[in-house]
């Protein structure tokens, strides 16, 4: 297996080099077909269960660049780099070293080569969202809205290589990533195989199936999921149901079931969006299941400024600790 992973890492490096070399003709005028946004946000979190109030500040750039030659497009690049500062944040992400730490955080950072023959898949290299479930087609970076990839799969983004294509009626993406999460390397033999096949994501009804086989942070995970999105006028009904198992100590597989249902409503002008989520998680070995609701609203005042508010409450009493009770407010400005 280690030999195979070494080979996969070499392939990732080779593909990255090829894409960069192929893209070279368009480097002469890098600002052509380049989109850049300055993106700043301030988030206030009130965790009533932990009796804690914290803040998270983020300032970064969000870029999208299409590389072209005289014969057409070669591919595109997405780069998102943020300086993120915590203030009294507990618990804090693995990316940080203390409740008041600040770090440069790479969100999406990848190249997607799209100029192959019609039958040939696009090739993605870099740090990207794992192709699994709802999160694969709905961008939640920098938003309060979340579909909990990180919690369910061990990470939302990872460094590696992926193949993707949109065909007449279906689209697919499969990836091998290294399991280092924010770092482009394997850590303790980490790896992630994941993939999703679904109907086209601009339809009113979208359905997909996903799989994941991974080892991240010394936890082995296997998952299979079905997800859907149904839109009727300004209403949306979304869901994701996953089954799988975890092996945390290299000894015993424990089963896990997870489901998320979401109902959302967007105003006609799309300035306002409301959503409600119900999340059910059942892990073998834990005395009780977990039932949580999220209610959120976002208001896009204009093209630059967005306010959002969300509240997360646990419905049932956990075996240990207090019920989750978290309210968050975010002000986000993009220019």
């Amino acid at each position, binding site marked *: 297996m280690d030999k195979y992973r070494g080979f996969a890492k070499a392939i990732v490096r080779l593909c990255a080099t090829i894409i960069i070399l192929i893209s070279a003709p368009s480097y002469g005028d890098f600002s052509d077909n380049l989109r850049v946004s300055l993106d700043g946000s301030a988030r206030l979190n009130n965790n009533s269960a932990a009796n804690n109030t914290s803040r998270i500040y983020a300032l970064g750039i969000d870029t999208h660049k299409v590389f072209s030659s005289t014969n057409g*497009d070669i591919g595109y690049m997405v780069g998102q*780099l943020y*300086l993120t500062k915590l203030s009294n944040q507990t618990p804090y992400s693995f990316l940080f070293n203390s409740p008041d730490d600040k770090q440069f955080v790479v969100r999406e950072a990848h190249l997607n080569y799209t100029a192959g023959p019609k039958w040939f898949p696009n090739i993605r290299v870099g740090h990207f969202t794992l192709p699994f479930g709802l999160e694969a087609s709905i961008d939640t970076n920098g938003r309060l809205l979340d579909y909990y990839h990180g919690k369910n799969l061990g990470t939302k983004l990872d460094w590696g290589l992926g193949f993707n294509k949109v065909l007449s009626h279906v689209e697919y993406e499969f990836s091998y990533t290294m399991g280092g999460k924010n770092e482009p390397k394997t850590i303790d033999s980490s790896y992630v195989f994941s993939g999703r096949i679904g109907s086209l994501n601009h339809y009113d009804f979208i359905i997909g199936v996903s799989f994941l086989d991974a080892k991240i942070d010394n936890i082995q995970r296997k998952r299979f999921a079905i997800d859907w999105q149904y839109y009727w006028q*300004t209403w949306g009904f979304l869901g994701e149901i996953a089954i799988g198992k975890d092996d945390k100590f290299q000894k015993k597989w424990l089963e896990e079931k997870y489901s998320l249902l979401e109902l959302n409503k967007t105003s006609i002008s799309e300035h306002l969006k409301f959503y409600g989520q119900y999340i059910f998680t059942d892990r073998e070995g834990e005395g009780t299941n977990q039932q949580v609701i999220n209610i959120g609203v976002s208001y896009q005042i204009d*093209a630059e400024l967005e306010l959002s508010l969300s509240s997360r409450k646990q419905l049932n009493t956990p075996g240990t600790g207090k019920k989750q009770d978290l309210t968050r407010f975010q002000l986000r400005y993009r220019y």
Partner: protein
Amino acid sequence: MKIPLILTLLLFSIEYSYADAYCSLRDPVAQIQQLYPQKTNQLSIVKTVDSSTRNLVKLALPSNDLHFSELGRHTLYVAMKNTEALGYVHVRSEQSKWGLVEIIWALDKDLKIQDFTFQRCRSPKKKILDNKDFKNVFIGKSYEELKTLLNSDGITANNILLDKARGAPELASVVLRCALKTLLITDILWGEELKKFNP
């Protein structure tokens, strides 16, 4: 030290976009293929729709405005057969009572409508596009020719188009307004650059 330096250089060397709504084809490779089956590739040309573009649209089409998601950096695709340009593909969205309607427009090199299809339309009347008579009203027409289909209120389509719309007058007007804005903005922002494909 490297990262702050790169950030600073980028911040001073770039042209900002106005919004994160990168209104474009969800997958250009596959969707342009449907409109131009003979194409071998596509060429993206990104331009900025800003407040001056918005004012020009308001001036040319009174009572109309651009939705906030329509501002920012937008892509026009040139459908290519090797080094030959076959036509242009431009996606624009128009507000409706069913939310935003996103339409993919195929334009010929003289900026006349060649074909169009919905990328997103949540109206129950969206099968209007299956009606060839309705589509044929648009095909082959330029901005000036299509403008004659607009009533004096600047918002609704006149009876020439509505007669073909068979019970979907609101959606027909949305499609017409979207077509007019697409042709106008394409000419304002991309017109000069596209001349090299139509010498």
